[in-house]
């Protein structure tokens, strides 16, 4: 198996700023990359662990009128305002069922915090570069645009999400 489980408990840890098991340098010589994995409508996705500031469980989200549909609202993370993005909507997936508990992965870009709402945050995986592959050309446009590539895991595939592109909203007024 090409993966090593470094922190299976991160899902339960609301403040993983001190990443318990994350290696000090995930882009180490071995070409290994460490990802926080998450599931979204049964698809496994990954975000590079260094981009993740926080993982949150259910939070009160204030709706923002007139905002793009993908923006779920804003939430208060220890005194900082975080813009929450509904990743399902962003990737044109059907909305999660009513009452489905969502989790959020907080990332930072340009000094601003953004929380991606996902179905479930799973373990942190360290993955080898050999298992990385470019997007298959047949991937639907919305996925192809927001994915940096695919990791072949033993039992399933993981899409590496491109945070910068996910946050690049065209300013449709």
């Amino acid at each position: 198996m090409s993966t090593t489980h470094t922190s299976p408990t991160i899902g339960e840890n609301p403040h993983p700023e001190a990443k318990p098991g994350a290696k000090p340098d995930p882009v180490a010589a071995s070409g290994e990359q460490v990802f926080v994995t998450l599931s979204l409508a049964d698809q496994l996705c990954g975000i590079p662990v260094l981009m993740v500031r926080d993982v949150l469980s259910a939070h009160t989200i204030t709706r923002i009128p007139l905002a793009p549909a993908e923006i779920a609202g804003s939430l208060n993370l220890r005194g900082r305002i975080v813009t929450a993005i509904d990743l399902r909507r962003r990737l044109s997936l059907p909305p999660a069922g009513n009452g489905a508990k969502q989790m959020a992965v907080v990332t930072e870009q340009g000094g601003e915090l953004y929380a991606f709402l996902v179905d479930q945050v799973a373990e942190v995986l360290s993955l080898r570069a050999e298992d990385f592959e470019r997007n298959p050309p047949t991937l639907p446009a919305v996925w192809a645009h927001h994915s940096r590539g695919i990791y072949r895991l033993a039992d399933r595939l993981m899409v590496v999400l491109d945070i910068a592109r996910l946050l690049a909203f065209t300013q449709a007024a």
Partner: protein
Amino acid sequence: MDDLLVDFLTETNESLAELDVALVKLERQPNDHETLSLIFRLVHTIKGTCGFLGLPRLERVAHAGENVLGRLRDGKLVASSDIISLVLASLDRIKVILAGLAEKGAEPEGDDSALIAALDAACEGRASAPELSAPELSTPEISAPEPSAPEPTTPEPTTPEPGTPAPTVAEPAAEAPVAAKPGMEAPREGAEPAVAGQTIRVGVDVLEHLMTLVSELVLTRNQLLQLARSMENSAFTVPLQRLSHITTDLQEGVMKTRMQPIGNAWNKLPRLVRDLARELGKKIDLVMIGADTELDRQVLELIKDPLTHMVRNSADHGLETPDVRRAAGKPETGHITLNAFHEGGHIIIEITDDGRGLDLARIRAKVLAQGLASEAELAAMSENQVQRFIFHPGFSTAAAITAVSGRGVGMDVVKTNIERIGGTVDLKTMPGAGSTFTIKIPLTLAIVSALIVEAGGERFAIPQISVVELVRAGAEGSAKGDQPMIERINATPVLRLRDRLLPLVGLRDLLALGAGDGAAQAGGELYIVVAQVGSSLLGIIVDRVFDTEEIVVKPVAPILRHITMFSGNTILGDGSVIMILDPNGIARASGVGGGEQRKPPQEAADTVTSTASTAMLLFRCGDAAPKAVPLGLVARLEDIPRARIEISAGKTVTQYRGRLMPLVAFDGLSGEGESQPVLVFSDGAHSMGLMVDEIVDVVDEVLAIELGPQVPGVLGTAVIAGRATDVIDTDYWLRAAEEDWFRGSPRAEARAAPHVLIVEDSDFFRQLLVPALAAAGYRVTAAASAAEALKLRESGAKIDAIISDIVMPDMDGLGFARAIRAGGPWAALPMIALTGQVDPADVEAGREAGFTDYVGKFQRGALLESLRQCLAPAANLGATMGGAIDHATASWDGA
């Protein structure tokens, strides 16, 4: 004195104080490497800065001292008390020189060679050197261990008298160090309060942190106050009151630490403008208003450069040379005015010049040349949009690149810098009269008090500063007694407020919030927040009003900045995030006092009934009055390169889609510029292009054409986008082109064209249909009512077909059809019903009443096809009325 020098003095005095302590510590523990490094670093910094500032005497002393310290640090020398004394002596000399510097702004005269020689000797480890100076330096040695001790007791005045320190500075400098010693205390004491005593340098992050803490304190205080309010006669009330006052004072105090007058950013401008004026050979007067307007220090730093850029631009691009100004009838001296003031929680800075204004034509040409927009896009832009291209990276309209500006780096940097701090920059320009740039910067980091309201189940904050009053009003029909009531004009809510009509906007509708908890619909009470927006008032309807809270404005995430309705967001005392409404943005979005901004399309669609509004294309040609044409009648908009416009047989034509298309100039003149905007009208078979000066906009408007005195080619005048606009007659222009182009023969055809009568009560529809049918080659007569049409019949008008509306006042379409079929010369004419409602029952009713065909409104193609079918046989027969009647009857029978 130079700012830099002041900073240097402040900094160096701090370092010196630190050095005294450290050196004494070193003497006690000669091997303390850390202390030694610190001392070395401090002296090194002083030396480096001296060199930078060009202070040779100070530099030499510091350098000699540093050398000794370097040897100490490297372990080549031992920090004996002799050597420490020597270093202390050099520090004292530095202080003397600094004192002189503070006094006069320049290094005092003096000879330091003895001291430097002693230091150098010590450095080389020569025993002779310390020996030489040992007797002299033993004096300070005594006082050295406790250099700070005498300071508090020194009876020197905190502010030195100008005369006193100067001689004492000069004297010891010239004499041997030992003699200087007693006197040296004086200038040192005197110098510090002069420069360093009044200000303390504090890191911005310390202030930032303090500000955050105060913000939190304010929020906590508010929560406490809220709790106390619910408990009467609590023992906490009085102390809490005091806490509240102190908190407020503290908040103001901390805010003040960050505020600086904007004049600080301006003080270099007069010099800049003066130099520019000389360099450019212009006469420029710089006027500065509101220099004491205070704003956040950080914001100030960030706008310093943009402001300088803009003033430079105004001087270089904006203002003309004296002879040009004289020729234009303006005073030789140009003015640049800087005006800063507070407005609604923002700081506005205006930079106005009375120069030539922006050259729109040149901007357009440049935009095209740089490929920033296509000609069609450009043609569709408003003037303001075109002007804003100057904020585009790499854009400059200066004809020549001067040393001052014209390289096209500047305005985009200005815009980026201002937007980075959440501000906006806008410009207004009047050709020949000058330009005004308006920078609007929000007071970020500021605590503002805000009114918390609720609409559609969501809470929002409205800055208290723009709230004028709160009105409790009843929904329509449910107001009790003399309670104000919301009334409606068409669908627009208004409120009578003290003999004035107050325009209202519903926050729920505006923010598309949906129904909410339904309290309002149930005829409950509504609250109206009367907000001041610029010079006008606007009422914002909300469901509920809570109380006011102090909030810390935080900017919204960049991906939400395009929503102009919000000026920021904040976290309330209870931890929830809420959006802060911007009354200015709301006013713009709802069209109150909002010049350029149009309504968002979805809103227009909601509030205006679709049958009554139509898309009109606005353009400009000939005189200043805007012209309009229903967009539906325009086949295409084209920008034809001037080179492709040809003159053939005296006619203007262009090759268009493989054919020649006649071009007609609206005012008979062809324009200038590289390309020609053209409206293409087409009747299927032929096209013609109407050359216009500029395509301005497309607007949705309810059209009410007032048929004025007939000008050829103009149907009449209507109010569109708030301006009287000529609505042009496409039929006239198509015919004009045909006459030009097809010479006679088509004309004869036109004369033989079937004559169609349109009966339609809506002015607009008549105006729409007449040109549409005329364009298709029919002769058209219009009647505004059935009665009018029947009058035409009586007068013996010859008609080939009738198109009639169904829903009309007095006699409706069905009645009219029956009246026609009942007898008279028109009894057998084909009749086409035109209606908004096409359902089988209606069609059946229409047929029974005598209509030949039934066509939905807006279906121009279907109408033309129906007409063609009704009339085609008649045309084929080339024939008389009788034939047409026969055939029309036949077609009716066959239907």
